[in-house]
């Protein structure tokens, strides 16, 4: 472990719980506590507790904070309601994805951005560049903020019971919105109904100094509901089943939001609701008009051998025509699932493609995403 490796404020808790810790995006983070499948299943059926303190948090404030974000990001951030949240992206002038982000509006002139750990420094640098000319300021608060997620069907009850004030807000909160609550122990938390698991769930942003108290409170409050600590391995299979893209796999600087099937988050405006210029606009408009040359699809296998990131997608003649971006045996479905970029001609659900699984072809069927959606 190099000296530069960062540790979560919950590091001691992970060690005490017997977690397997691995280097991840410059941090040493828990990959699992007991077992990947048990943790995955707990989130699908009860609740899971995740330490996501490696994620980046950036605060944007100022009279022109909304105008600045409209310029810097592909979404219309000025339209986000107070306490609302939006999934958006930071793109290059060429339309490539620098990172996917969630932006929360905490006040009319105050936004809170969550970035991927591996991209945080790049996002901060890029946003700082784009600030020129706007009456707004940026602060990287990643190290001061801990992020603890409670995900699963039992999450609402557990998080509400953790509150001394604001439990009614937890119950009333819609998906992709947020509130300030007071947790037991007089701890202030910014709580959002967001997540990366395909289940209902909440993300609690608290001071790093209070992370250990919040972690202990969540474990104690949720114990009878079946809440268990979950590592990054189960988080990956949960998001894959939910068809959610991961930066570095489905999303890169060489992909546009349109390639990834997420063109809807790019807002160009209409004659009645125009939108000003934003970084990447011209290239993204071209990408929209031309249509993607490759399409992100879901793949479902009948065999036992799973496709993994980087494996080639083969056409009927055995030619490599695409690439798998993520793949695993699905704990919920009990079959191999994957996401892959394929040519538009092979993107129709029902199409059978081959995957080069370490030199041996395995057939998989193109399937609409997501692989799993919770009963609503």
């Amino acid at each position: 472990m190099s000296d530069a490796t960062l540790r979560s404020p919950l590091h001691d808790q992970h060690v005490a719980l017997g977690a397997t810790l691995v280097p991840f995006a410059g941090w040493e983070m828990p990959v699992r506590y007991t077992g990947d499948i048990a943790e995955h299943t707990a989130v699908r059926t009860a609740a899971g507790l995740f330490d996501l303190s490696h994620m980046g948090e950036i605060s944007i404030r100022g009279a022109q904070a909304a105008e600045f974000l409209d310029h810097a990001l592909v979404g219309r951030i000025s339209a986000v309601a107070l306490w609302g949240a939006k999934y958006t992206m930071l793109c290059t002038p060429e339309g490539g994805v620098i990172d996917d982000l969630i932006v929360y509006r905490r006040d009319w002139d105050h936004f809170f951005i969550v970035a991927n750990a591996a991209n945080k420094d790049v996002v901060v640098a890029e946003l700082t560049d784009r600030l020129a000319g706007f009456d707004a300021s940026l602060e990287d608060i990643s190290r001061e903020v801990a992020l603890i997620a409670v995900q699963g069907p039992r999450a609402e009850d557990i998080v509400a019971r953790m509150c001394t004030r604001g439990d009614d807000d937890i119950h009333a909160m819609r998906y992709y919105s947020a509130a300030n609550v007071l947790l037991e122990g007089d701890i202030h938390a910014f709580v959002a109904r967001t997540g990366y698991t395909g289940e209902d769930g909440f993300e609690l942003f608290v001071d790093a100094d209070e992370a250990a108290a919040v972690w202990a409170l969540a474990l104690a409050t949720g114990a009878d509901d079946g809440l268990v600590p979950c590592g990054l391995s189960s988080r990956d299979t949960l998001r894959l089943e939910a068809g959610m893209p991961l930066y570095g796999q489905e999303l890169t600087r060489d992909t546009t939001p349109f390639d990834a099937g997420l063109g809807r988050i790019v807002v160009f405006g209409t004659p009645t609701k125009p939108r000003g210029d934003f970084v990447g606009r011209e290239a993204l408009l071209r990408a929209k008009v031309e249509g993607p040359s490759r399409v992100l699809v879901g793949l479902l296998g009948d065999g036992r051998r799973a496709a993994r990131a980087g494996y080639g997608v083969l056409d009927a003649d055995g030619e490599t025509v695409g690439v798998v971006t993520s793949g695993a045996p699905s704990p919920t479905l009990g079959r191999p699932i994957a996401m892959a970029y394929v040519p538009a001609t092979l993107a129709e659900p029902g199409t059978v493609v081959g995957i080069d699984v370490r030199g041996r072809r395995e057939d998989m069927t193109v399937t609409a995403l997501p692989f799993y959606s919770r009963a609503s």
Partner: protein
Amino acid sequence: MSNVPEELAYSAEHEWVSGEPDAGAEVTVGITEHAAQALGDIVYVEAPRVGDTVVAGEVCGELESTKAVSELYSPVSGTVVAVNEALEGAPETLNSDAYGDGWIFKVEISETATDLLDAEAYAALTE
């Protein structure tokens, strides 16, 4: 810390061998608890088939977990005489009982194995 039984021999690729690995003898092969833990929940074992020839240090199958896939190496050279069929329906046995019910295959050794590690040397390797 994972368990490394004294009475077994080990390969650097994290397989264990039960029995004297002498030419003509039959030994049982599995993967170590350390390897099983590193892989996470194992969901599929592709073992060699009865009658296959295996060569020490060469790939003879694969192990798939939710997290990753890993190649299975044979720690000895010889002919496969039995395969643990129960792993087909219960691959998680590798995680729960790596040195017992999680055995993978049995080999009739064609050539005495000389480069296996004892428990102490293997434990040192995984520290």
